[in-house]
């Protein structure tokens, strides 16, 4: 059976198994649990004490709590990844056996946070060597050990990037003469025009 929220693939077995675990808690508690899981996916952290309280009535063990959080995370992130609208998600979840009230609650939470979730996923997409900061300084060289009167402007650029392989911040310092800098600026402006044309 192909499911859109799984990217037109079969639903993983563990998701099927844990959907029946989810059905054990009441639909009100389910909606609150969805809110907690969404907070976690948006990077705001999850309050495990609240989750434990929500699942205490249904007497979930720690394994069940982890499983229900995992299955909700999977459903939300996978549905946002494949840009599934909430009616399709609702019908697919009901096909998998999640009761109607739980599905309605889940899809309502999904619909509310749909675009925010996609924005967060877009942010965390792979990017190599992200530019974190630029600082510059213009100097004027008066003279040097080679020539008594130099009288030329010089630009010092400090680029802070996130290393592609290491993932930690790397600093590059470059000094550029006036002519070279004009070339650099012209090329970057051309690239910027192209980027603006695409947006």
């Amino acid at each position, binding site marked *: 059976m192909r499911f859109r929220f799984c990217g037109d693939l079969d639903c993983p077995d563990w998701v099927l198994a844990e959907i029946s675990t989810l059905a054990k808690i009441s639909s009100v508690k389910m909606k609150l649990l969805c809110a907690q899981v969404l907070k976690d996916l948006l990077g705001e952290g999850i309050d495990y004490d609240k989750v434990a309280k929500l699942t205490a009535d249904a007497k979930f063990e720690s394994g069940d709590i982890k499983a229900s959080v995992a299955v909700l995370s999977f459903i939300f992130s996978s549905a946002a990844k494949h840009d599934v609208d909430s009616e399709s998600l609702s019908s697919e979840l009901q096909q998998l056996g999640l009761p109607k009230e739980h599905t309605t609650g889940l899809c309502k939470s999904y619909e509310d946070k749909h675009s925010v979730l996609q924005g967060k996923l877009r942010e965390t997409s792979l990017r190599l060597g992200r530019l974190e900061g630029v600082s510059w300084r213009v100097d004027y060289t008066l003279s040097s050990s080679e020539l008594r009167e130099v009288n030329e402007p010089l630009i010092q650029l400090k680029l802070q990037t996130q290393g592609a392989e*290491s993932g930690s911040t790397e600093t590059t310092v470059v000094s550029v003469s006036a002519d070279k800098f004009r070339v650099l600026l012209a090329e970057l402006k051309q690239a910027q025009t192209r980027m603006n044309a695409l947006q």
Partner: protein
Amino acid sequence: MLLVLSEEHKEHLSFLPRVDSAVVGEFGRIALEFLRRGSSPKIYEGAARKLCVPVETVQRGVEGLMYLMTESSKHMISKVDFLDSVLVLGFGEELNQILLQLYLQHHSEIRSILSQLPSNLPGYHNLEWRLDVQLASRAIRQQVVPVLTMRLLLTGGGDGTGELSRRVLQTDPGTLLHLISTLEGALAAIKTNHARRIFRNIK
């Protein structure tokens, strides 16, 4: 199978019958902590002072006990074989029973610790990817070049610590299709008759 203990090992373990059973239980606990986290000399010194014996004797006794446990867990020997192997040492019945209880309680934990030891190959952890299309570069405009960039995260590997190592890879669609078909071929190899025959014979 029976464990064959070396003379030196037997000598180290000969310390054990000289102390009473509560102390042997305590030594067992220290030995297991050693396996889990490593030993500290303070523990041995404290025990040596209480029993009025030199520190090395205590240390050798605990290490001998730990070695006995790891060897027994490694070969997964049965209760009877364990008792027979320990009989060689000539300990009393009570001590044998204590050692047996120690073995039975902890052998699965010891096996899981031992299984984590040989980890020298990097293992797959995660793969992040992005699909880009290069439209223009400084040298040439009006291009359409699709490129897949991947970051492969691997666990362990060379340094042996829990650190993740990263590799950045780039590929064009043709190579990607070839990569996918090779990996699917590898998966399909599990379903051949030859592989199935081998799987049936391993329990």
